[in-house]
């Protein structure tokens, strides 16, 4: 409400090379501000590499990543997180033996934290911050429908809930730029629908530039207002879902058939 509109992410001439392998080659793409953006493409197209590059988990060989006009490719992960760019993972990485609440609260790192001594000795300096964080955690837990499981250990939860816990950890600070790597992976049809609904709801309440790497065509079509199709480390096509999925090159690359083949 008080926040200004979320920033756009602009990628210019980005190359990521692992030894002799070009994971991304001279890739330029605009991730428009405040939209839900789907990144699609076959395995090995460079979707995760693009996410890793933007979030700082991969060293960039060449090119620029602009967040709101600022070049961030030299920043470390922590600085990018502080600037409001937070990611999730394809494999769920949680604190298995801890509660849902604890797992979500750790994501509040992006918010201001009192110093170590104040925390160790329970100084008043931390009380206010803690209240704010806990309220934020409860809100996001309710928003994602995890309220009943709040105090349960995450290793007791079904996979779909664990997925949501990870999403909640990303969302607790409502970062202006959110990168999710195949959040629907491993979910059944029902779980996917729910996840899409949750993400849409969150995006409506807390506008962000939400980038979702996803295989599921239906989910992307339902959720995203902008789609980027990758293949072999380059952008094949970008634009509205209709346009991208109607593009013969996308059909060929992504579905392995040409546009005129029967659907």
């Amino acid at each position: 409400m008080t926040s200004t509109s979320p920033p756009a992410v602009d990628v210019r001439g980005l190359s990521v090379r692992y030894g002799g392998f070009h994971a991304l080659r001279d890739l330029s793409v605009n991730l428009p501000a405040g939209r839900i953006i789907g990144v699609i493409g076959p395995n090995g197209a460079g979707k995760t590499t693009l996410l890793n590059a933007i979030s700082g988990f991969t060293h960039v060989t060449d090119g620029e990543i602009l967040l709101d006009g600022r070049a961030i490719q030299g920043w470390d992960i922590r600085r990018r997180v502080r600037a409001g760019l937070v990611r999730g993972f394809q494999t769920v990485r949680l604190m298995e033996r801890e509660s849902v609440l604890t797992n979500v609260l750790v994501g509040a790192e992006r918010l201001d934290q009192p110093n170590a001594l104040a925390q160790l000795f329970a100084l008043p300096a931390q009380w206010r911050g803690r209240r704010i964080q806990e309220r934020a955690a409860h809100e996001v837990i309710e928003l994602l429908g995890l309220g009943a499981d709040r105090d349960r250990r995450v290793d007791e939860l079904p996979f779909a809930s664990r997925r949501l816990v990870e999403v909640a950890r990303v969302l607790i600070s409502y970062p202006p730029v959110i990168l999710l790597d195949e959040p629907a992976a491993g979910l059944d049809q029902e779980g996917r629908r729910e996840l899409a609904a949750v993400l849409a709801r969150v995006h409506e309440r807390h506008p962000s530039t939400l980038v979702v790497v996803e295989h599921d065509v239906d989910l992307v079509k339902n959720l995203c207002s902008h789609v980027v199709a990758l293949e072999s480390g380059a952008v094949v096509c970008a634009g509205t879902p209709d346009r991208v999925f109607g593009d013969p090159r996308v059909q060929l690359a992504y579905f392995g058939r040409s546009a005129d083949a029967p659907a």
Partner: protein
Amino acid sequence: MSTRSRTGAPSVALGATADPRLKRSRLPRLLLVVVIAALPPLFFDDYWLFLVAQVAAFAVATLGLDILYGRTGQMSLAHASFMGVGAYTGHLLAGLNQGVAVQLLGVLVVSVLAGLVVALPTLRLSGMRLALVTLAFGELLAWVLINTTDLTGGTQGTSVDPVVIGPLDSSVPMQAYLMALVPASIATLIVLHLGRTQMGRRMLIVRDSETAARSVGVAVARTKVISFLVSAVFAGVAGWLYAAVAGFISPPDFNLFASVYLLVAVIVGGAGSAVGAWLGAAYIVLMPQAFSLVGQPNLYPLVGGALLAVVALLVPDGIVGLSRRLAGRFRRAEDRPNHPDRPNHPDRPDRSTSGGDR
């Protein structure tokens, strides 16, 4: 009640801090702790009180190691060495006719320095390699202790002057017990509180996934260093306390085996739990005595080793995890028949159904 009397802020009512469950469960637990703490002076003779005072001293060390190993997941084979740093620093300062306050301050400062020396490799290392670096530190300290005979008494060890604070004298078991309870309580409170802070959560996520920690913006290296420093300070104070209670220290008290036993304590008790750290401290202090009592002191290493293997294989969460699991099973079995017997049971429909699926 108090929240309702505060008018004008109804929207805050569902705030997390007003969790009634927490507030209700705290008082009985506190009473239980006080009762347990009061038992030894009432029922134990001097010798056992002396041992229980040692348990309290070791608890400070195991609580510290629990922060480092149990919560942050960093292996240290130097923790007894940190205890040695504290014990000998205190002893040397006492030899210079310094009072308790100066001794304690000295112990804190030197422990932080020692912790820093060992913590710096954590920036680059983890797992077994880190353990080896901490091992090297331990061996170095052992070498120093043995070869500075005029300061430390060398391999012969040295007797330590009792610490006297006001009317309390650490050479009297009962008073030593009371004295040891103070730092042990403070250490316990810090560890319990740590679980509710972001600092504590950072440690947990560093333990479980450094990648995830980075992704939410946790400074992984800084978290490890802080964890090392805090646990080194805990161990240093524990060593100082142990020296005062035992009245005698020698290098074997602080060698590799002692460090391994501290790790054993944390693992057997239950890593990541303050109660577990206490159980572990009790285990490593009292177990050898129990075997001596039945006339089989040599059995301790054998049975202790076997027990560690069993715990590591069967109950990875230690005694605390085991009891929690048993309690969970018990509660689930009891849930239904007990419901009418608990008229005050708050209306929390989700709790009973979420626990078990049968």
